[in-house]
């Protein structure tokens, strides 16, 4: 995170406050979660109160105030995914990693997160890890997927999903 990046984001908006979400993403990516210092600094930069920044941080699903696993596995459990076995996938993930959805493995590697619609219903049941989408994921694919994620713990820069299938 450089000052140049921050200034570039600020330059996109006629009113500074609009840069809040983009800057929160940036600060969170840098530290893994939104730290208290980040919230105070952001408020100062944008002329907002820390309370306003906290309100925003807790309103949106993607911001986190505590650190989670290095690799967050988002499993969609909404209708199209549920119809095709998302719950079985979640159960298998929980068994494989030895944690419940919402928890982080003791080594800090994985967090399982249930999420509402990933807008990937065409590859349901769908999983998202960083920018990558996986689907359709069967419960029997879970072991291999976890192994694959272990080999590349850092969130990749480009979509590279080997399980991703196109829709036609």
């Amino acid at each position, binding site marked *: 995170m450089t000052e140049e990046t921050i200034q570039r984001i600020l330059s996109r908006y006629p009113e500074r406050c609009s840069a809040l979400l983009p800057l929160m993403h940036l600060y969170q990516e840098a530290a893994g979660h939104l730290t208290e210092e980040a919230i105070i600094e952001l408020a100062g930069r944008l002329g907002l109160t820390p309370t*306003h920044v906290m309100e925003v941080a807790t309103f949106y699903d993607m911001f986190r105030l505590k650190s989670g696993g290095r690799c967050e596995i988002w499993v969609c459990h909404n*209708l199209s995914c549920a119809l095709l076995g998302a719950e079985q996938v979640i159960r298998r993930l929980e068994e494989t990693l030895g944690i419940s959805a919402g928890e982080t493995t003791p080594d800090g590697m994985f967090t399982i997160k249930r999420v509402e619609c990933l807008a990937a219903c065409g590859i349901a049941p769908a999983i998202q890890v960083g920018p990558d989408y996986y689907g359709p994921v069967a419960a029997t694919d879970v072991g291999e997927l976890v192994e694959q994620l272990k080999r590349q713990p850092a969130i990749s820069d480009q979509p590279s999903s080997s399980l991703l299938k196109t829709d036609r």
Partner: protein
Amino acid sequence: MYEKILTNRFEIPGYRGTLEEYEATGGYQAIAKVLKEHTPAGLIELVKRSGLRGRGGAGFPTGVKWGFVPKGSELPKYLVCNADESEPGTFKDRELIMRDPHQLIEGIMLAGFAIGCQTAYIYIRGEFVAGARILEQAIQDATARGLLGKDILGSSFSLDLHAHRGAGAYICGEETALLESLEGKRGLPRLKPPFPATAGLYRKPTVVNNVETLSNIPHIVMRGAEWFSSIGTPKSTGTRIFGVSGHVRRPGIYECPIDVPMRELIFEHAGGMREGRRLKAVIPGGSSVPVLTERHLDTRMDFESLATAGSMAGSGGVIVIAEGTCMVRVGEVVSRFYHHESCGQCTQCREGTAWLHKTLRRIEEGRGRTADLDLLLDICDNMKGKTICPLSDAAAMPIESYLKYFRDEFEQHVAEHACPFGARVGV
């Protein structure tokens, strides 16, 4: 097979949607043509005559919406592309962004010219990290080519475009919540009026259009309003990208004339039901719309036909449900979503969505009471039309429809103190 309009480039072998590929297939000719031949008022008139209606959910006529922006005002005007696709069952905008970003950018340029704006934003859902990167690259390429920025193609038209990521809140797909979010606040919908056309982003005149809606504009410019309105019905024109998911053989997106029969969409395009399954129900326009059943299969997918059948065209997300699926459980999943996504501003929605979900879960788990069925309908009745935005209606309408067509299943749950389907929704 029909002619595809928005997805025709997807069929070109090796097409990745780069600026060069887009231009080589006729891209950016529409903006050149408009800058040479049209006035903003003329372009608005053309889009009005085409009959194009918004593809995000409400189906409002696009040209009419553009026409609401005050002319001659000194205030800056804004165009915001709504790419916050998060309605369960809907996954079409993702494809348009990933596979042909310049088609969208050209649509934004044209809309920006029509309403006289100089700054436009694409509000893309936060989870679409890859989509946002593709858009940023495409915007950078278009700017380098002089297609965005100052004095575009030697004209006096200037437009800056920025991709802006949301952060995971379905409500931000509602246009006024989206504007609040873009202003760096919680995405709480605003009371209307004033409408965004007069007081939108930063309280300045603003148009919010969906990705698919905007992607249509270059084609309307190149081929004319009459060509566009010859597809579909007099009130629903053009094609539509339907996302078909659930218990079908080939889930995916299918671009068809907007009035394609539901039966054809499911049984021909999406390959019909999965092996050995029979169709039980269809949600034709995203999780917020009323469900239909097998006897509605000959309904066409246009706005009026689906309304006549008692449902809505919504966002074009078609969820197909096979026999053996528990509709109480479907209701529980759908109501959990709206409970999770309610912004909490209006009591009827905040409390109603929670109450609906709790009651449905209780019935599904075999702890329901006979009175719960009427209770559900009573809660729905108290949620509809009584809130600032339509999320409350979106939560209530599907549940009412599940009770309308599948009341016996709800009664069976109560009578047997258990789910007759073994408490599972999946295959």
